[in-house]
């Protein structure tokens, strides 16, 4: 795993440390929820994990075509992925509009998020699964793992307007559903 900034480790600031999982398509809701639920003196860390499966697949597919020379798309996808991670973190930082650390990681997404946020006071994530109806499938593989394994308290929000037929659920688009998990 490669980190571009160290996570907050100072024990005094642990309670104020808010980690935000920045993920494709869902990061806006996570940033908004962090802003409305974090304590006023919170210190923010934006956390993005690059999915290396795409670059690896392209690299492997190229290597599987025996004999070709010098046109491996894996390196190009790596560069694109690095730029994308930086762009996402930049966009998230702009939306947050508060001083923040940026953490850019590689590897298994869910494990990276759980490990990096272990000492946080709060981890904010957006649902990464099926958004069409409430229920367990609204969490994807990474989200499910994070909710099940996170050491710190976790705030889970819908990335967009929650499904309308939510019995007793939140009605306001982008508002967190106040589901807190802690171990």
């Amino acid at each position, binding site marked *: 795993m490669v980190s571009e900034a160290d996570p907050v480790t100072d024990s005094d600031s642990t309670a104020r440390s808010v980690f935000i999982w920045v993920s*494709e*398509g869902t990061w806006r809701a996570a940033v908004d929820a962090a802003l409305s639920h974090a304590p006023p003196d919170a210190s923010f860390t934006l956390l993005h994990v690059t999915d290396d499966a795409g670059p690896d697949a392209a690299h*492997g*597919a190229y290597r599987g075509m*025996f004999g070709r020379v010098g046109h491996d*798309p894996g390196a190009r996808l790596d560069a694109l992925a690095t730029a994308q991670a930086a762009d996402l973190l930049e966009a998230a930082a702009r939306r947050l509009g508060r001083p923040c650390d940026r953490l850019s990681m590689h*590897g298994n997404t869910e494990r990276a998020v759980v490990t990096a946020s272990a000492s946080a006071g709060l981890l904010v994530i957006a649902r990464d*699964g099926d958004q069409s109806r409430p229920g367990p499938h609204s969490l994807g593989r990474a989200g499910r793992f994070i909710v099940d394994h996170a050491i710190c308290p976790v705030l889970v929000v819908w*990335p967009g307007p929650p499904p309308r037929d939510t019995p007793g659920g939140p009605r306001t688009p982008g508002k967190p559903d106040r589901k807190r998990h802690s171990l």
Partner: protein
Amino acid sequence: MLNAAAGETISLIALLALLAWAVTRPRGWPEAVAAVPAAAVLVAARAIPVSAAVAEARRLGPVIGFLAAILVLARLCDDDGLFRACGGWMARTSAGRPRRLLAQVFVTAAVTTAVLSLDATVVLLTPVVFATAAKLDVRSRPHVYACTHLANSASLLLPVSNLTNLLAFAATGLAFGHFAALMALPWLAVIGVEYAVFSRFFASDLSTGPAGAAPDTADGPGLPRFTLVVVALTLAGFVVASAAGVSPAWAALAGAAVLAARALKGRRITPLGVLGAADVPFLAFVLGLGIVVEAVVSNGLGSALAPLLPTGTSVPALLAIAGLSAALANVCNNLPAVLVLLPLAAPSGAGAVLAVLLGVNIGPNLTYTGSLATLLWRRTLHRHGSAADLAEFTRLGLLTVPAGLIIAVLALWLALHGIGG
């Protein structure tokens, strides 16, 4: 001439060394560095008669020329912005919805693979698809996987879609248009299977799109019309030339020459750049591999494998041929696999040769790249991947390949009976 046993032993050692080289790539040197000397050693040791080696080189000559022309054509299409324009089109029409983007990627990757070969999809289209997904703020994994899968499974349609097809084209005895007509139904069928599996397998990734307005994608580049017209005329040239008994390689050469002349005139590429696009070491590798495999087959492997390959074009026979081809493509790699199986399948007619192609083109998706796959994956994992990704890719292969093979074989059987082989 060595006796057959000694000849077979030395030929097999040469082939295995070549495959080992391809997987480990010592010092990053290309496979040609091993393939050409391996072929030379076999000729010098009389494991293959000089006349047989020359005959194989003559057989491969037009194939290699054809391949070079297609590689150059695809590269110049990329230089002219064709794939960037495809990316713009996908971004605009998908409106930021991952499911719609997946459908666009399927269409683009299937057509690119069919017309400009799997190399174009893997090398030129995949980065554009990745960048498009990033721009739309959707997860790239399903879309990139779709490119790598379709580079193999959507390479059934035309003789130019895959080097395996080019190698087999002459053995089918079919004209270009006839080949395409017979493979159209299997091509569509296997793409359908892939799409059905992908949309379920990646349901979670595909249901998470950016909330709110779609990203601004209005500023995409337009389609390079001249380039598209040249590609269309080249395609028509394949069919017309082949029907007139002229090698369709000439049409490919003409198309590549037109685009190259235009790019050279506009100083967008140098003559050396054109040569680089043709990937000369790759062409040398194909020649070397062809001679090595010919030595292996003629010294005994051919007669040893012959009883394993069913004859005829009944559904069970076609299924067995495609299955065996897919297995061999996974054990070694689809290039040696098709070279070994072609002479065995050819006597049963075009249907059997096309069944071999179904196996060696669809099969590689089963164990990632169909090439001593786990070893390759370990190399890949050393980059930065995780074992979870390997498991996921293998599961995807298990879901798509057997189903795709069976349905494609049934479609081929229907086409053979409907159109006639």
